[in-house]
């Protein structure tokens, strides 16, 4: 069919607006628009909308390019990222070598490290303890289920539910006063959380659940602003969580450990 006589379609109208119409179709489209004022009106509305949109967006085109988007800056960033990656890998390899050497040299000298099953359980304990800390330590109306005023009842109740005799550590010497505690789910078992507060409103939680296995050393984890020390002692897994730095939290973890341990052994080293 000849290019001039083919009827005008929606595709022609789009191409007309977008200046992508083949030269041979121009007359056909213009004749069509003269005969169809409604379509012509629609096209001019669409054109006006496009012009408005351009006016609105064009100031961005005229702005200078921000420094961080220059090709040189991007290339520099890519080079630095590559260098950082290489350095990280190198550091990991070095640490692995040192770690293996130290581990081999020190075999039998230190308390048992985590076995892999224990490792998984401790990771779950830490994750649950951190989640419970984040949820309840910001609570203003009901931070605890049973308040410190009913401490004997709190201890008796949580001990029965956990299936282990618990004691509430006294952290007054470090400036933290017991607020109370609550019962939490831990898989299909129960866990207990004790909450403390210092004079400036800083809160600390001690999380306890049954964790079969050998006793372990303290283990430190930092996670998005909170610090955690965790350990297993005589069948119980502990995690102490707070938004304070590592040395301060270590002193508190040490105190918790001492108080809960009947034989008053020295605290396990911070490793």
């Amino acid at each position, binding site marked *: 069919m000849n290019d001039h006589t083919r009827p005008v379609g*929606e*595709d022609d*109208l*789009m*191409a007309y607006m*977008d200046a*992508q119409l083949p030269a041979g179709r121009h007359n056909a489209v213009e004749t069509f628009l003269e005969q169809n004022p409604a379509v012509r009106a*629609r096209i001019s*509305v*669409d054109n006006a*909308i*496009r012009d*408005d*949109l*351009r*006016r*609105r*967006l*064009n*100031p*961005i*085109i*005229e*702005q200078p*390019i*921000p420094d*961080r*988007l*220059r*090709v*040189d800056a*991007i*290339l520099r*960033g*890519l080079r630095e990222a590559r260098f950082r990656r290489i350095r990280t890998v190198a550091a990991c390899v070095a640490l692995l070598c040192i770690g293996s050497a130290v581990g081999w040299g020190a075999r039998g000298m230190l308390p048992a490290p985590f076995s892999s099953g224990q490792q998984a359980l401790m990771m779950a304990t830490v994750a649950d303890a951190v989640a419970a800390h984040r949820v309840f330590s910001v609570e203003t109306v009901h931070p605890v289920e049973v308040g410190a005023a009913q401490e004997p009842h709190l201890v008796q109740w949580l001990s029965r539910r956990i299936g282990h005799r618990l004691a509430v550590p006294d952290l007054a010497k470090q400036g933290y006063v017991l607020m109370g505690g609550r019962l939490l789910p831990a898989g299909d078992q129960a866990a207990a959380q004790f909450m403390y507060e210092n004079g400036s409103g800083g809160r600390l939680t001690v999380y306890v659940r049954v964790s079969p296995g050998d006793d372990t050393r303290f283990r430190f984890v930092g996670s998005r602003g909170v610090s955690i020390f965790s350990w297993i002692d005589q069948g119980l897994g502990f995690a102490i969580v707070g938004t304070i730095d590592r040395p301060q939290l270590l002193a508190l973890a040490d105190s918790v450990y001492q108080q809960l341990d009947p034989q008053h052994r020295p605290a396990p080293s911070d490793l």
Partner: protein
Amino acid sequence: MSDLAAQIEPHIPSLRRYARALLRNQEAADDLVQDCLERALGRWHLRRHDASSRAWLFAILRNLHLNNVRQLARRGVHVEFQEADGYASPDGDGERTLIVRDALHALATLPEEQRSLLLLVAIDDFSYQEAADLFKVPAGTIMSRLSRARANFRSAIEGGARVTLRRVK
């Protein structure tokens, strides 16, 4: 290297404009452009030499945007960016500003595919063939999608303008 800059930098203003129209927040838009440039420069040697670098850059930016939106949706994050008010209409005419603002709001109500298609063809002057390559459909399909996008855009503006005028009175 300056050769590379000469090939890429002329497209940065229009990439920023496209990103800004997708995200409606200049800071987030520039982050997207930065991601796009990092991706492009990291794979510069992989691009097809017959393809235009402009179309290639726009395709990378759009894919990154779609990935971000999908990821946010998976994490249940509601994507809503505040609109900065830095772009008054240059002619300073109040009525015009209202219509112009409505055009951007109305654009944001369209599905991403229609929004991108309108921006690429009507604002960045992509040819139908370039748009067809980017969306991986035939050129004829681009024209019918464009017609549908324009109809939706028009009715979104007409609906939005009434709301705005009522609020102004």
